[in-house]
């Protein structure tokens, strides 16, 4: 599987370093873009810099990097400014104003480049897709080591971004979550906003000149989004996003070398594979994240449904007992009354027998005394809610049952006694059924013999 991995430290090492530097620098800023709902700004800027590049070329009539860099950064900032301006002045939605600005600038750039195309090799492709594979070729000697120029540039950008975030941490945090409060506490959220935009432009331009724009656009959005699913704290979000960005840098290059070989090709370009692996890491985070992951959410939902189902069975047995003094109930009857499947009913019954809430006699089930106490508390909650809804919320009698059916599962002993205090001291609910009393030995907080067992 890995036999085609011809790792060469001098080549691949530097490529990975350049990729990781770019990824981390972009992900740092990306956190704040995602929080401010401006995730697509990186994409917008990467298209919009085209006229800047072309203009720089017209003025300096060379493809040297400094004027190009300046031209691109200036148009990048211009994009952010124009977007903000159209949004504010024209009251246009953020996404739409971004769309108007960057497509227009891109079209302008395209026209300019087509005019210049006869004179020089300057096509949008080569301007927009810098090649990360060429990183190790262009080197600079520093303190006896030859270091690729790209790595130096990207390190400078990374340090700049890091300094910005550390220096303005509090301001960034406040202005991302609550710009109004930020302004009332005395600093200008706009200044922070434009500083951030400027750095986004610098980072994008520095990166896609050297490693290609796909990588930057992806790294602005994907690692921070994954990190956003993993944690609720901004500090950890930044840390996670940096880790994910770094990991996808390494994985991307390895993937670019290996994955095509499975299908009989040599290798593919590195930068897109870094974006792809960031996407793969995002999928992992989205599925397995501890609190906000899809899997955990489904699991939590199922657990809740399972708990409600068990409580419903106990309440059903209690009601049957109350109505017709029928002690034991067959599983088939429970299935019919609760519209449940055979398997889930028998698992739930087995489970509750295990915890001593039910006992089995000749294939039929009846409540034990702890089971009856638990059922009583559910029924008590149900009937107290019904009484409360009729007396206090003026809800018509026909409609209270469904609501009470839902609330009964989330009502603990304390809430039950509040409900009892709030409603009239009646012992029967609006439908005329007796409200069971509070059983004394279950007034603890958990109210659940299963969890104590």
């Amino acid at each position, binding site marked *: 599987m890995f036999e085609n991995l011809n790792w060469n430290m001098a080549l691949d090492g530097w490529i990975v370093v350049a990729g990781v530097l770019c990824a981390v620098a972009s992900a740092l800023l990306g956190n704040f873009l995602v929080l401010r709902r401006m995730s697509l700004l990186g*994409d917008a800027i990467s298209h919009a810099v085209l006229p800047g590049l072309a203009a720089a070329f017209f003025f300096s009539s060379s493809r040297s990097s400094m004027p190009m860099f300046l031209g691109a950064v200036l148009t990048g900032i211009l994009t952010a400014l124009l977007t903000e301006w*159209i949004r504010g*002045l024209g*009251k246009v939605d953020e*996404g739409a104003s971004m769309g108007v600005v960057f497509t227009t600038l891109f079209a302008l750039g395209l026209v300019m480049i087509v005019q210049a195309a006869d004179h020089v090799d300057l096509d949008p492709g080569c301007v927009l897709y810098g090649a990360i594979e060429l990183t190790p070729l262009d080197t600079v000697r520093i303190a006896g080591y030859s270091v690729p120029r790209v790595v130096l540039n990207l390190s400078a950008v990374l340090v700049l971004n890091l300094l910005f975030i550390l220096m303005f941490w509090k301001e960034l945090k406040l202005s991302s979550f609550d710009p109004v409060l930020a302004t009332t506490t005395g600093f200008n959220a706009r200044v922070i906003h434009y500083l951030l935009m400027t750095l986004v432009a610098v980072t994008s331009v520095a990166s896609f000149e050297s490693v290609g724009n796909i*990588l930057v656009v992806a790294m602005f*959005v994907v690692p921070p989004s994954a990190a956003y699913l993993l944690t609720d704290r901004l500090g950890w979000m930044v840390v996670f996003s940096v880790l994910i960005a770094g990991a996808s840098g390494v994985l991307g290059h390895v993937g670019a070398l290996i994955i095509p070989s499975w299908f009989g*090709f040599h290798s593919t370009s590195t930068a897109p594979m870094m974006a*792809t692996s960031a996407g793969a890491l995002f999928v992992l985070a989205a599925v397995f994240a501890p609190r906000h992951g899809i899997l955990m959410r489904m699991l939590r939902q199922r657990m809740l449904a399972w708990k409600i189902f068990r409580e419903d069975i106990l309440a059903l047995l209690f009601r049957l007992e109350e109505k017709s003094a029928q002690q034991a109930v067959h599983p088939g009857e429970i299935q019919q009354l609760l519209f449940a499947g055979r398997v889930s009913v028998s698992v739930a019954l087995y489970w509750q027998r295990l915890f001593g809430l039910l006992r089995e006699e000749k294939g039929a089930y009846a409540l034990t005394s702890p089971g009856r106490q638990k059922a009583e508390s559910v029924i008590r909650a149900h009937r107290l809610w019904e009484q409360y809804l009729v007396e206090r919320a003026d809800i018509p009698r026909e409609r209270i049952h469904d609501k009470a059916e839902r609330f009964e599962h989330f009502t603990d002993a304390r809430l039950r006694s509040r409900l009892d205090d709030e409603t009239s001291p009646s012992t029967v609910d609006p439908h005329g059924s007796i409200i069971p009393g509070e059983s004394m030995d279950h007034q603890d907080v958990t109210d659940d013999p299963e969890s104590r067992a």
Partner: protein
Amino acid sequence: MTQSRRCQTAVVLVLGCVLGSMPLMGQEHDALGDRQHSITDRRVEWPTWSQWKRVFLLQDYNTRVVVFGTTLLGMAGGLVGSFALLRKRALMGDALSHATLPGIGLAFIFATYCGMDGKSLPVLLSGAAVSGVLGVAVILGIRNMTRLKEDAALGIVLSVFFGIGVGILGVVQQMKTGHAAGLEGFVYGKTASMRSYDAWLIGGTGFVCMLISVAFFKELKLICFDETFAGSRGYPVLMLDMLLMALVVVVTIIGLQAVGLILMIALLVIPAAAARFWTENMQRLAVYSSVLGAICCLVGSSFSAIFPRLPSGAMIVLTSAVFFMISMILGSRRGVLVRVLRRRQLNRAIDREHLLRGIYELLEIQRDPSGTDNYQIPVSHSNLLAMRSWSSSQLGWRIRQAEREGLVQEIGGRELRLTPKGFREAARLVHQHRLWEMYLLEYAEIAPSKVDRQADAIEHVLDSDVIAELETLLLQRQNVEGVPVSPHRIGVASESGSSATSREVEM
């Protein structure tokens, strides 16, 4: 239920209409091979009169076809875009157009392995459609199943799908059989080389998209404005959302050929955003937006036909940008100019009201103004200046303005008095102001020293209904006729040394 089925049929219809027409298209493509003129063949810097005439009278078959095709595309883009804009998904076309790239690459590889021509348009477009639909599914999945917002979902799909696509193209370039060079054409768009059948396909599909949008107009409008309400009325929100996205996918994919991957976004965003300045009505928005899209495409592609050096995709976008700027400034509903004018009118009215109220209050300090002819008493400029924080030039300007409206009369340049009309107006304003002050004192329990400022802010926007209500609420109880007395010390600040003119008014 019928709603949901209708939607399903529509989604299937939209996708089917693109996929279904593809095999047909391939044959036509060959049949029309001999007619494949590129309209960029002319290499003249400035067109001659006959060329202008040829383009504008659509004498050239090819020009006619290209202009017709892009115009219909512009209409479809504008119409679908107006829904996307209101749904705050303006950049969806952006994400989807990038998401088509892996499909294009995979379709090329697949077709080449199957021995077909990898670069035939039907194959590539079906690949693009499939991966575009996948992109839509992922966007909806991220939005509905995680806590990420719309923009992040679009950004993720855009960058990751594009990354995968470029990765696949990197592989494609190594294929011995493949000549992948033309695939990049999808990224930048070559309208100029549009063939007549492409134009017919684009036009036809655009037309079907428009028909579907019109058929589902009410439903789409509802999910644009109030998704929850639509859900509670039993509309299949997810299906309608899918329908909208499918329309965007289809328009994007057919547009790829005409204006290219990146500039296609502009056709979905700009006409709709520009039309938004002209109307508040959804129906009109859709009409304006599609008309604007059509005009932009018409003008843009004609320009490109006249000046061969200008790429038509870029020209279409630049034309729409010009229309956008014009609409943003001149738009009759939300345009900048209209809003500035409206604001200036309001400011002017506020200034006039402040002036009249200032005069009235000064009169009140000297004598009861409601007595006969008492309003004729002149008021000096300096006293007025002390009432409000105006400079003397501001005051002069305001007085001249009020004079033009026949509300005040200047006397000798240093004093002025109210006209009968001005007096009625002033009494009405003071009446309103004091009512609001009393309301604040009575019901909001605000300190008497603060009510003046608060009432200042609101008195200009009180309408007659509110005034009538305040009157019954406050005055009947207190038995006050005409203008009620001020609940606080009037205007001229006592600490500024001019206490001689100020008078404590007892409640």
